[in-house]
């Protein structure tokens, strides 16, 4: 059973050197005397997630809603495994597909095929699995002979087709996405949306962050409202 359960997740980002570099702090300290300076460690902490607890079960479609800096992306990165929370527990079961930055690991000097192999390898696929997926991925991109050209020669629209095709090629239990992905010109975009939708539909859990409430309402069954790192409300639709 795919599930995510979090208890009291806390994430702090240390900002090293910020205090000592700030002229204002230095001046303030000199004005208030030595007492403050003693306990002013050279470390500022930003609490990005503050005591988040939630249960996500199979079939859940979670929409993360909140202002800039409310902790949506941080939460997604924690779920993707990039950041480990500094305290609290996080239990996850199921394969995870992170669509947070799908062009990660792409290389401008390498050609389309090489990039596909690289990205598939980073996703943990072996050579045999990659060989099996390759025809389907290359066909979907509609890039044809361009795939044997270095990626830097692609237009930005063509460029995005490659990671998109790879990211949506493998089904996963849990899909994490920061804003809805859209690529390509009108005709391609339609095809891409259908492919993305199919992948999301087959996922057991979706966690999608967006500022677009309508989008979340049409794709999700539960909305998590985040404010300053707190989970202030869970709205069931």
């Amino acid at each position, binding site marked *: 059973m795919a599930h995510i359960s979090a208890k009291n997740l806390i994430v*702090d*980002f*240390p900002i*090293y050197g910020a205090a000592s570099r700030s002229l204002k702090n230095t001046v303030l300290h000199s004005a208030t005397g030595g007492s403050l300076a003693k306990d002013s460690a050279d470390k500022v902490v930003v609490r990005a997630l503050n005591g988040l607890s939630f249960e996500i079960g199979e079939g859940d479609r979670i929409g993360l809603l909140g202002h800039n800096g409310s902790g949506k992306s941080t939460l997604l*990165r924690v779920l*993707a*495994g*990039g*950041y*480990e*929370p*500094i305290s609290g*527990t*996080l*239990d*996850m*079961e199921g394969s*995870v597909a*992170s669509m*947070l*930055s799908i062009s*990660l*690991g792409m*290389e401008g*000097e*390498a050609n389309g095929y090489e990039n596909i*192999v*690289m990205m598939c*390898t*980073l996703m*943990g696929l*072996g*050579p045999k699995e990659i060989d099996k997926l390759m025809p389907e991925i290359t066909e979907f991109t509609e890039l044809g002979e361009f795939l044997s050209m270095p990626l830097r020669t692609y237009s930005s629209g063509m460029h995005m087709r490659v990671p998109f095709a790879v990211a949506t090629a493998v089904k996963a239990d849990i899909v994490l996405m920061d804003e809805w992905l859209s690529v390509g010109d009108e005709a391609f975009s339609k095809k891409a949306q259908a492919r993305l939708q199919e992948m999301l539909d087959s996922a057991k859990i979706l966690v999608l962050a967006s500022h677009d409430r309508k989008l979340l309402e049409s794709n999700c069954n539960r909305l998590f409202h985040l404010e300053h790192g707190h989970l202030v409300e869970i709205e069931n639709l």
Partner: protein
Amino acid sequence: MTTQVISPLSKALNDIASGFGGHKIWTMLGWQDIKQRYRRSALGPWWLTISTGVMVAGMGPLYGRLFGQPTAGYVAFVAASLIAWQLINAIINDSCQVFIAAEGHIKQTRLPLSIYVYRVIWRNMIIFIHNLAILLIVYILMPFEVSVSTLLAVAGLLLLLINSVWIGLMLGMLCARFRDIPQIIASLLQIAFFLTPIFWKPEMLGRHQWIAQINPLFHLVEIIRNPLLGKSASLLSWGVVSGVAVIGSIATLSLFSRFRARIAYWL
């Protein structure tokens, strides 16, 4: 996947082991680094070999003269020394950037952190293998001794690689947290190149050979250079390098289990 029940130490060990298991990823990343660096150059990684070769061709005869050494033997010595030193030097230098350079991957994915250490080691092994061509050319021009002891080069390399894992993790961590350390390491290595018997021999120090013997980098160079030249290294050298591997690994393991989860936040 349970996050808190597992101890930090077993998580650290698991990272190191599963990172090694992800060899498909680190070999790919290592090759990619090399390809990227030399993508549009005709000679590719052979450029490094050529520059090392030029150094051997230039320094060999000159310093042989300066130190009053027979040219043929001395050129082979310098070639083996430089190849060994460049491997060690590059691994230590690159170790400073293992995590800094992989920032994007580390923040977005759950790949084990040790993968980026293996990547750096792999990349430098590829360059090392290219550099062996210099020794082959020297051998053809002025043959030196090749014996059973030459096989010890494999053992020497293996010991160096074991050391590289802890050096990579340790320096990677320290440099991610304190951004001045890469500069310090780079300048220390520059001095070490002259203080370590690389193009001179410890015997030349006469009574003061201890200056070479107390330097662990000397022993590290010895266990690779000597076998390449058909000789074994002294027991002291093997012992020092093994000892450093054990002590370094223990120190790194305690640091890595404590701070592994923090590394992403330092980047």
